[in-house]
Structures are given as C-alpha cells and as structure tokens.
C-alpha cells in the first residue's frame, strides 16, 4: 500500500492517532487528519490535491459525515466508513465499504486495496 495519500476524519483524537499510526505502518501517507466537517471541507476546497482515499468516522460529535462523503464521491475519491454503529443510515452510501470500530488491520487492508484499485482505474491525468 506504499505511497497511498489518505485523509482521516475522526472526532476522537485518540482514535485518530491510532488510525494515523496504523496507516503509517502500512506505508500510507496521511495528508490530512480532521476532527470535523468544517476542517475537512476547508482542506478539500482549499485547492489541495485530492487524496487517494479517505477513512471516515460516521458520527462526528453529533454531525453526520455524509455531506463530505458526497463531496468525495463527486471528486471520485474512494472512501471507507469506520463506525461503532450498525448499518449506514444514509441510503446513498449503503453500499460503501464499512469498517467496524475498533478497526482491524485486515479490514483496513481491504479498504486500502480498494483505494489502490480505484487509483489504478483512473484515466491518465488522474481525477
């Protein structure tokens, strides 16, 4: 998974720290780590190069991550949800990959493989 550029959106900084470490251990580069929608949108819309994938906590201190998931979809950025809850409540994303918290390395690897596959299937010139 070396070289994948990823963002992490997670409101609990302790959990985010661990996710960042797990991703770094797997050879990924965490280019952004955000605790809420506002910070993530500011980064995404601030002209940063779109990442190769995103790990999204579903409930960010009461606000749902779905608007960001939608914005990522529009930019063809693949993502995976990480949640302590059951199924995804927003049916637009019912089919999106879902990782249970605490996230296991096996689940994370599977998500990263999808990100890699999506990156390879992009037309020359990228997103």
């Amino acid at each position, binding site marked *: 998974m070396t070289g994948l550029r990823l963002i992490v959106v997670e*409101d*609990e*900084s*302790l*959990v*985010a*720290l*661990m996710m960042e*470490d797990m991703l770094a251990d797997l050879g990924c580069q965490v280019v952004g*780590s*955000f*605790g*809420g929608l*506002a*910070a993530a949108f500011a980064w995404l819309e601030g002209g940063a190069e779109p990442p190769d994938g995103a790990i999204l906590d579903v*409930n960010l*201190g009461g606000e749902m991550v779905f608007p960001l998931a939608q914005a990522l979809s529009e930019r063809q950025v693949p993502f995976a949800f990480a949640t*302590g*809850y059951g199924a995804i409540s927003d049916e637009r994303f019912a089919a999106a990959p879902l990782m249970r*918290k*605490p996230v296991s390395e096996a689940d994370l690897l599977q998500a990263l493989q999808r990100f890699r596959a999506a990156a390879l299937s992009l037309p020359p010139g990228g997103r």
Partner: protein
Amino acid sequence: MSSAAAPLAAPGSDPLFTLVETIEELSAARTVEEVAAVVRSAARRISGADGIAFVLRDDDMCWYLDEDAIGPLWKGRRFPLTACISGWAMLNRQTVVAPDIYQDPRIPHDAYRPTFVKSLVMTPVRPHDPLAAIGAYWAVERTPTEDEIIKLQVMARATATALENARMYASLNETLARRKFLLRELDHRCKNMLASVHSIADQTLRKSATPRDFVEAFTGRLGAMSRAHELLTRGEWGRAALLEVLSAALEPFGGIDGRRIRADGPAVALSPETAVAFHMTVHELAVNAVRHGALAGESGTVEIEWSVDMAQPRRALAFGWRERGGRPPASDPQRKGFGLRLLEGGLARDLGGEARLLFDPRGVEFSLEAPLSDRIALA
C-alpha cells in the same frame, strides 16, 4: 317515531347518553389537543349553546385554545386572567352565570361587542385548583336552566381528569424519550471509550522499552481517563468546568495547591468529550513535568492560566501551562511519543485550534488557542 314517545332514545339524541359518551371519549384522550377537541364538540351538543370555548390557564394568562361557535370568538388568543371572565371563574373557583352579559360588571364588554354573545355560562375545570375553563355562549339573552349548568359542570369535572391524564402521558412520553436518548448516548460513549483505550494501549506499547514501563504508563493513562469519566458522571454528563477538570487531572500530582501548582482563569464550561480530552492533555503534561520538568525536583512550579479575549471578533480561549524553576527540559525530542503527539494534535485538532509545545530552557511551556464553540464556552 318521535323521540318523546320512544322508550329508549336513539344514541346521540338522549342528553344523558351524550354525556356518558363524552366522558368515555374524554377518558380516551391522550393529549391536551384531543381533550379540547372532545370538549368543543360535545359541550355544544350537551348544552345546546350557540358557542363553546375551551380556555387553558397558562400561568397568569387565559389561553383560548379552541372553540366551536356560530361566529368567531377568541381562538388562539391570550388575555390576562384578570381581564376576562374565564380568568374570573378560575381565580374565584366558581361558575359564572350571566343571563345578560352587558349587565354583568365582571365581563369586559369591549371584548364581546364584535361577537354574537348575549349570555353565557363559564365553569372552571378542577374547581379546587382550576387549570382550564369551559365557556358556553348564547346569541340571545336567556337564563340557563339548572340542568344546563349541571351538565356543563359534570363535563368540566370529566375534563379535569382528562387534562391530568394528558399531562401525565406527556411527561411519561418525555421520560421514555429521554431514557432512549440516554441509552443511545451510553452506547456511543462506551464504544468511543473502548476505542480510546485500544488506542492508548497501542500507543503506549509502541513507546515502552519494557513491560514494566508499559504497565506504569498505561495504568497512569487509564487512571486519568477513569477520573475524567468520574467527574462527568457526577455532573450527569452535562458540561464540566475547566477548573474542576484541572483539579481532577492534577490531583495525583499534588493537586492545585497554590504553591507548586497554581491555576487561574475565568469560568469556562467544557462539553463531555472536550473535558476528557483536556483531562488527558493535562495528565500528559503533568507526567512529563514529574519525570523531566518542574515537578521533578523540590523547587519547580507550574503556572496554569487561561483567558478569553472579549475584544476579538472571533472569541477564543487562550490556555497556557508554564513550568519554571525545575530542571531545564531536554530539547525537542526527535521521536515523538504518544504524549507529545496528543499534546500537539489532540485537543487542538478536536477544537479547531492551535497548540504549541515549547522547550524553553527555563521550563516547558504549552499553549493552546481554541475558538469558543459548543464544546468550549464561557460559563
């Protein structure tokens, strides 16, 4: 077949039957609106009046909740108890009978001139402590029969029970909803806490040279988390005061004693999540101070200060931790451990602010600047 000749009147035409039916309907009503709907239609049928108003007491106001009449009355309006006849009936706990309202000085005639009303009966609901009133109005001057007055009073009694039921139902539903909410919250927090403990274990293990190191650091961090939660449980998972959080976090390190550890700042309230994050941050600072900083020797001090600059358009909390008089700190470590990363990235990240850790030769300094929000507010 005339109704007078019938041995049993058809349901709906016999006034007694109507009254019984109404009492049944009232006992099945579950909301104040349902009660009002029953009263409105039934009271008119039972009394034969040209109009009915159902008036709720709302502190020192009469609230004309609902009406059914041949012309508009005062539906939806509120008047002071002392300025209308329903208020008089409730305040004096008596039924008012006015065969000619314009001869009755208790009645505010101006309010009645635009209406059809010429005579009325107004009876309080639950006479010992009225919570509503039922008004029956006629378009002609007339003295109501004893029978009409009694029927209205019977209805008022049934209405009192129905209103009390409706209120009990509402409070029961509220309690149930609150319980459901709390269970969901608890579930969410449990999962978050387990995830946090998982993270702490993972992080602590990464930087521990020996199992003993791991146990010591891990136990300390787990203890800090547990004390943070204790504080929150005591406050029923509402907001926690920053000073309280600091006191709890520093207690294992000698506490805020005003000598070695001083803390000063305005009252600031933290959301539960932020309180835990603050607690963990201060714990890491204190552990570091005891190991390598101002609290390692006998003479060092820690000065904690915070303020909110009211002049700024975007109000922010400025929080500072300053160590003095201890050993000079080691320079900025190359390999950042969990504590350092938490200090630099934890709270600030959560709050959308900025944190700086400075290894000043005079002592470690930590500063955090975070905009006020629903997570962090002046109390």
